[in-house]
């Protein structure tokens, strides 16, 4: 129950802490009546009230909390999209350039670009899957302050990658590349973009399904 409340976007840390102290005090009192640990816990939870109603009542007191929380997650979603986009493009461009320097030409350069894209998506997807599915990650980490920190980090990373991709890659490498080779490189990038467009909807749908599944079966523990 405490974990369910801790994961709520409508309750702050102080609210959860206050309810937890209440629950513990009630359990201590009930233990003096001779009930077992399990019984005291069940009775104390019952007296505290069901979580959905509690969330509703707390939301009435802090109506702005829900709005700002959702807004921050929307920001994370948008920033996350651009972060993944830039990470993937950066990895593809750099690796394709490396392939070019090592003597690879179309169509192998295009195959390499696609392979890099697929690997990048698979890695990012697996990491996200692990993060969201990990039991060690407390649901409290899905709250506003952390969400804002992640947004800030994502924004900084996007700027850094954009600068790296545009300034370093385009200026230093493309400037030294003959025009006919550049067309080969552009073709490879085209294939990479195609791979991106093909895989992205599946990645997003998978993540949304994972989050929805976790929210449908909240862990009612301790």
């Amino acid at each position, binding site marked *: 129950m405490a974990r369910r409340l801790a994961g709520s976007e409508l309750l702050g840390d*102080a*609210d959860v*802490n*206050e*309810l937890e*102290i*209440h629950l*513990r*005090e*009630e359990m201590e009192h009930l233990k003096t009546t001779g009930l077992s640990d399990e019984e005291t816990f069940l009775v104390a939870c019952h*007296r*505290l*009230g069901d979580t959905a*109603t*509690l969330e509703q*009542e*707390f939301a*009435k*007191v*802090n109506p702005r909390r829900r709005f700002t929380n959702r807004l921050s997650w929307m920001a994370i979603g948008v920033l996350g999209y651009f972060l993944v986009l830039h990470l993937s493009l950066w990895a593809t461009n750099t690796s394709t350039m490396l392939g070019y320097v090592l003597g690879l030409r179309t169509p192998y350069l295009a195959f390499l670009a696609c392979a890099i894209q697929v690997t990048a998506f698979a890695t990012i997807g697996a990491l996200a899957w692990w993060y969201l599915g990990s039991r060690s990650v407390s649901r409290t980490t899905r709250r506003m302050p952390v969400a804002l920190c992640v947004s800030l980090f994502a924004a900084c990373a996007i700027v850094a990658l954009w600068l790296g991709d545009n300034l370093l890659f385009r200026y230093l490498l493309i400037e030294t590349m003959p025009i006919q080779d550049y067309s080969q490189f552009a073709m490879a990038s085209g294939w990479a973009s195609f791979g991106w467009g093909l895989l992205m909807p599946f990645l997003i749908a998978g993540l949304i399904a994972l989050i929805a599944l976790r929210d449908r079966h909240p862990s009612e523990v301790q």
Partner: protein
Amino acid sequence: MSVAKDLVAASATPLILAILAGGDSYGYAIIKRVRELSGGQMTWTDGMLYPVLHRLEKQGLVESYRDAGETGRERKYYRLRKEGTRALAEHRSQWMLVHNALQQLWETKPCLT
């Protein structure tokens, strides 16, 4: 006999303010006091007390602070503010008005014909 939900909800604010008028207190102690006062007839869903306390704090009627009680456990205590004392007086006069009106009606012998 248990008290109707509407009446429990309506009396929550004056009860909390009146308990805090007797000294600073925290959530669990307030609920215990209400149980004692009503002889266990008036039961709140414990968790519902906190949104009420937070609303009163938002309205400036009470203020909160953290303190470790006798057990050494840190709790959030609530204290009545001047505005709260004024609000309590207002609640008291309103409830007394209702009480007196009902008292007069119920003290009158019923007409059975």
